[in-house]
């Protein structure tokens, strides 16, 4: 079940999460190996996003949501401990949301928003260099290099999602969580993002929630399959895609159930 047990970067143990009194995750245990792409699959409402949001503690921004049991370790550190510094955790474990959002400022300032907060202001030259390299990494540089100071709100949604990834990368995270990053995007932008994910895994660990089985097959190394808030299947891409033991997972993967 767990490919690289204790040496893995992110270790989830017996996690229970509830919204109000309704349990969403029940005894979820999983581990996510370093510098690989793990796809989290499952029907809607199975707790995929919830699991993702526990890992950088953005879940607690939802008032009713509570972690009721279990532990999450990132690099051996118990991140659910009350003494955990949430902001530095969120810097280390970045998140990219389903709906890309431009902050009401220029493209340049959008990229610099989180980084500036964590590392302070830089010399203009240094800042420009960092912005340029980030935008190049997400493949946006050529499209926006002449309008870095114009408002980010005029970008297309595909460009915006890449901007959001650049914004997260600017924090220099070890892990990036992606919550259906392509569900609002057209096929072409989706392809760009998928290529980008393949490039990024050389330096960061990626967890991606998706409902798109073909996408999971294309980009993931590991797959975690959730059903009704519990782990139904976990393993490498080939193991889960080729020989899932759970019959409902097999039906889901073959497209008979969605």
């Amino acid at each position, binding site marked *: 079940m767990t490919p690289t047990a204790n040496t893995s970067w992110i270790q989830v143990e017996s996690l229970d999460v509830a919204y109000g009194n309704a349990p969403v995750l029940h005894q979820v245990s999983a581990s996510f190996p370093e510098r690989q792409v793990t796809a989290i699959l499952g029907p809607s409402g199975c707790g995929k996003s919830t699991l993702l949001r526990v890992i950088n503690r953005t879940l607690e921004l939802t008032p009713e949501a509570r972690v009721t049991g279990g532990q999450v370790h990132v690099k051996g550190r118990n991140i659910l401990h009350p*003494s955990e510094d*949430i902001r530095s955790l969120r810097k280390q474990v970045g998140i990219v949301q389903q709906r890309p959002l431009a902050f009401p400022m220029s493209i340049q300032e959008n990229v610099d928003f989180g980084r500036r907060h964590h590392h302070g202001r830089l010399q203009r030259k240094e800042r420009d260099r960092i912005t340029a390299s980030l935008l190049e990494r997400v493949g946006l540089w050529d499209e926006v290099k002449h309008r870095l100071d114009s408002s980010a709100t005029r970008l297309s949604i595909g460009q915006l999602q890449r901007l959001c990834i650049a914004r997260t990368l600017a924090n220099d995270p070890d892990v990036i969580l992606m919550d259906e990053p392509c569900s609002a995007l057209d096929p072409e932008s989706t392809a760009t993002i998928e290529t980008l994910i393949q490039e990024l895994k050389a330096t960061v660990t990626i967890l991606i929630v998706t409902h798109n089985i073909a996408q999971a097959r294309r980009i993931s190394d590991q797959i975690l399959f959730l059903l009704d808030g519990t782990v139904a299947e976990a393993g490498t891409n080939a193991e889960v895609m080729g020989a899932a033991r759970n019959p409902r997972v097999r039906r889901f993967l073959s497209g008979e159930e969605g």
Partner: protein
Amino acid sequence: MTRPRPLDVLFRGLIWAAGIVGMALPVWIVGFLLVRGAGRLTWSFLVDHPRGYPPGTEGGILPAILGSAALILVGLVIAIPLGVGGGLYLAEFCPSKRLQSYARAAVEALAGVPSILYGLFGFACFVVFLRMGISLLAGGLVLGLVMLPILLITSQEAFAAVAAQYREATLSLGTDRSAWIFWVLLPKARVRILAGLVLAVGHAVGSAAPVLFTASVYFRRGGLHLDQPVMTLPTHLYFLVSEAISFDHAFATALVLVLGLAIFNGAAMALRHQMRDS
């Protein structure tokens, strides 16, 4: 945990202070009126006529309560058909989206017009121009106008909400339009319209400015007649204070107004909750 910055802490403190002031103000005002007015507020105060000299120093406020109620009833005769009908027209029959948005903007602007201007209009149009004199009829018409925009806006929204939910399902069954309106739209929108009505009435009962020179007098005997002036609760309070007649009675009258409206608005809130549940 990283320590929060002192400025952030100060800001948070200020915001909490603002929130506490926001909750304390109504408690203070209502509490103040309760403490000073509750002693005077007896059953006989509600059902007796003003007595003493000048009238109002003793006795009760029954004619003011009846006058206010009569004004509202006359107003509703105008406001309900025009408001609900106008809302229905805008939501269902309006030929163009453009006209709809202009009409909506105009009605919203009308809702924002200060009530004293309604009073002035009523004085010029009903009292003087149409020769109604200062009367229940003139004042009721003015209050009808005050309630109209609120009622129109809420009923349009009510109809639109129902239509969004049920139109396709109903019309696809092959029913005609009048069946749709009478069997689906009106019954389904009823609760929301009722809530809007309560809101409008609550607003109109308390406003003195529109009736001050169209319907009300400080004191009068005799029953309610359409062509005669009436006493009303808010203007009674105004006269008691501005002529320094009786502060005891003013406290009790203010309390009647505030408690009455609180009950009224509470009913509106309960209606809205019921709406959300169903």
